């Protein structure tokens, strides 16, 4: 890999070596903006040392995220990572967030001292549209020319000093994922704060300038700077609606209408005017500062895409990759899982031998170790699943998957942009629902919010893995994929297909509306950055452990108490196992379970599964920890046995046969595919669906339809399976 040459510079001084101390000790506020998928978040993470999520597809950041670092002069520099935008037209909610912040009119009054525009060196033409708008905002600007190495490797030669001259702002080549160019960028940011704000670098045709002059004056009179007024005047021609920062501007609507009429009279098309003048300027800038190689052989990405996006082979490759992903969860995780199981078992026995017999020992061994331990063993699965998915994301394949899904999305009536929130939903529905902010149309957005929780999130993984590991044999189906991996794939596909079906239903009834086309950018394939990948996997594992150590620990303790008290009056002489069973039956948990049993009996479940489902309304993994606690309390003598072995060994007290069969396990997994059992998801749906009574109504509808779908589907699986001759 060739070393990167960093020609640092500003318009006034193309070589910055020292930085004058900042006049004020207050933090310098820097907002980061750029087109989607230019590496803004990678740059933000590299500068601040934070671990914000990154991905090789558009729409990863949908909120403002803040971080800070210390400049070379010791001054704090506060960074704000804004959602990606192609322009300042503010079409979608996340673009509005960006625009309001850049013009200093957002609710927190975070007025940037410097705006850092991240541009993709490979796609400079498209990226300079936004950069050109930002340059006119009246705030000092620095441009990070990111992915400079990719541009060089593709033979694109960028004359950076010339580009600085053309744009009139400092331009710093960077490779954010390798941390190259960061020192120069920090210097440029500190220096830019002391430079005068840049202005528009091109002149409008005389007649057009005259037509726009009254509108510019109006914006100026209402408090915008001269430069920002010029930018807003152009922007308002294409999107003549009053954004929040323009509310209350006197005479604005009349001035916009007049400007549009005058431009038409002068022979221009107002809605295209901004694009035409800006792209004419960009063509000039590119012509003077960029040399592109002649187009010849197709690139590596083109050759891979010939297969990955093929009408027939594309979906085959997609399904094959998914099968490998889910198979890897079983094949690679099992040895690690065995190690964690042994450690927890040894630790439980050790603690049990130290504590005297009594309730405290039972709480620690049967409640905490059995409950939390039964969830902790799934850590390797989480790590492996997200490593493999991370590789697909970071390599750029997920954008191809979105492209393949777009046809299906349009058929069900969803916007192609809905794919990214649904993809995020595989990790967790909460960020998935928040990622719907990239969707402009409120009905499309709401339809997506309503179905994102149907995507199988990581909290379902312990439930699937426990039941598949216990009841599905590991027989080979095709080379490299066995029945366990295939079952897991089917569960994930079931949620996805149901999400598409329900979305189609919403889009044809409550949320009827036109289907809009999607413009999708396919990034070049890249080798995943090991560092970014490791950061995201470690973070997910850390959060999984944190959840196990907080919510699941607390629930395990409470459930142990409910399973232990009140103490039943059990006659002596009975075997220990029978005494424990009687105690559990007579406990509060046992009584609640028997109360719930009539509701779950039609699905083939006993009271233990019923009470575990009820407890898991807080969080899905609690199903596993509750079963762990119940079996820990019920029979301490089998404490060393893994939970899945205990489930297989459980006998039906009436028939003497197995209490749980593969049919019951499949029905239970189907129940978990569809049921919305997550407090955080309900809370975020309320907020994102509009808050207040409207938000609560949508959340109630979402919870209700998902629960009904789960119950009916599990019943169909159980009764249908029995009718086909499977043991119930």
């Amino acid at each position: 890999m060739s070393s990167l040459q960093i020609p640092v510079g500003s318009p006034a001084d193309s070589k910055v070596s020292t930085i004058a101390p900042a006049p004020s000790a207050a933090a310098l506020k820097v907002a980061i903006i750029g087109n989607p998928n230019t590496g803004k978040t990678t740059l933000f993470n590299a500068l601040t040392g934070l671990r914000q999520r990154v991905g090789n597809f558009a729409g990863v950041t949908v909120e403002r995220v803040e971080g800070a670092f210390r400049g070379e002069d010791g001054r704090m520099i506060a960074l704000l990572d804004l959602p990606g935008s192609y322009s300042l037209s503010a079409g979608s909610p996340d673009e509005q967030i960006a625009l309001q912040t850049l013009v200093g009119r957002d609710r927190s009054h975070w007025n940037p001292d410097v705006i850092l525009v991240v541009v993709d060196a490979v796609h400079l033409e498209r990226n300079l549209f936004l950069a050109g708008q930002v340059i006119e905002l009246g705030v000092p600007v620095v441009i990070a020319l990111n992915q400079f190495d990719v541009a060089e490797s593709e033979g694109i030669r960028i004359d950076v000093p010339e580009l600085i001259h053309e744009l009139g702002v400092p331009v710093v080549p960077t490779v954010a994922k390798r941390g190259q160019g960061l020192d120069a960028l920090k210097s440029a940011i500190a220096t830019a704060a002391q430079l005068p704000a840049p202005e528009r670098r091109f002149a409008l045709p005389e007649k057009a300038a005259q037509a726009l002059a009254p509108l510019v004056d109006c914006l100026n009179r209402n408090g915008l700077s001269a430069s920002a007024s010029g930018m807003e005047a152009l922007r308002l021609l294409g999107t003549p609606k009053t954004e929040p920062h323009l509310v209350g501007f006197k005479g604005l609507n009349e001035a916009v209408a007049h400007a549009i009429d005058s431009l038409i009279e002068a022979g221009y098309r107002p809605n295209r005017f901004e694009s035409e003048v800006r792209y004419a300027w960009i063509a000039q800038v590119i012509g003077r500062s960029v040399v592109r190689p002649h187009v010849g052989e197709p690139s590596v990405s083109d050759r891979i895409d010939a297969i990955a996006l093929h009408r027939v082979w594309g979906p085959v490759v997609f399904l094959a990759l998914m099968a490998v992903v889910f198979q890897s969860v079983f094949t690679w995780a099992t040895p690690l899982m065995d190690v964690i199981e042994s450690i927890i078992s040894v630790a439980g026995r050790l603690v049990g031998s130290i504590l005297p017999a009594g309730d405290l020992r039972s709480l620690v061994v049967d409640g905490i170790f059995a409950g939390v331990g039964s969830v902790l063993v799934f850590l390797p699965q989480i790590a492996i699943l997200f490593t493999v998915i991370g590789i697909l994301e970071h390599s750029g394949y997920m954008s191809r998957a979105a492209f393949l899904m777009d046809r299906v999305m349009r058929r069900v009536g969803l916007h192609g942009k809905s794919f990214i929130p649904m993809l995020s939903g595989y990790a967790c529905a909460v960020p998935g629902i928040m990622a719907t902010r990239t969707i402009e149309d409120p009905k499309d957005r709401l339809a997506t919010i309503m179905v994102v929780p149907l995507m199988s999130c990581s909290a379902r993984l312990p439930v699937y893995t426990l039941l598949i590991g216990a009841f599905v044999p590991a027989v080979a189906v095709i080379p490299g994929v066995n029945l366990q991996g295939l079952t897991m794939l089917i569960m994930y596909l079931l949620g996805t297909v149901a999400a598409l079906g329900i979305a189609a239903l919403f889009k044809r009834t409550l949320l009827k509306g036109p289907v809009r086309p999607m413009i999708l950018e396919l990034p070049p394939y890249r080798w995943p950055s090991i560092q970014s990948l490791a950061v995201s996997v470690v973070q997910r594992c850390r959060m999984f452990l944190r959840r196990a150590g907080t919510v699941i620990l607390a629930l395990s303790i409470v459930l142990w108490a409910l399973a232990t008290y009140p103490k039943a009056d059990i006659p002596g002489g009975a075997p220990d196992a029978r005494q424990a069973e009687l105690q559990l039956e007579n406990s509060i948990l046992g009584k609640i379970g028997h109360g719930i049993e009539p509701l779950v009996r039609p699905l083939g479940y006993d009271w233990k599964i019923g009470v575990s489902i009820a407890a898991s309304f807080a969080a899905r993994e609690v199903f596993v920890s509750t079963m762990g606690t119940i079996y820990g309390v019920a029979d301490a003598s089998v404490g060393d046995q893994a939970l899945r072995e205990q489930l297989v060994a459980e006998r039906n007290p009436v028939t003497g046969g197995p209490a749980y069969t593969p049919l019951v396990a499949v029905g239970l997994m189907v129940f978990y595919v569809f049921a919305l059992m997550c407090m955080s998801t309900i809370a975020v749906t309320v907020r994102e669906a509009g808050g207040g009574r409207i938000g609560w109504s949508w959340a109630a509808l979402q919870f209700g339809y998902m629960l009904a779908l789960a119950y009916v589907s599990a019943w169909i699986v159980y009764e249908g399976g029995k009718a086909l001759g499977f043991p119930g």
Partner: protein
Amino acid sequence: MDTILVMLIVGIAAAFIARKLYRTIVSARSDKAGCSSCGCGESVERDPLSL
């Protein structure tokens, strides 16, 4: 002594769950709430839901 200690631990756990439930409900009304309560690791932002 054993029973008192056990009851104390159970009480703290129950209070923790009640607090978590309350904060989740409150977050539905707050426009500042974010991801960190769900524990998925998707976001590092700090918000009132942080445990």
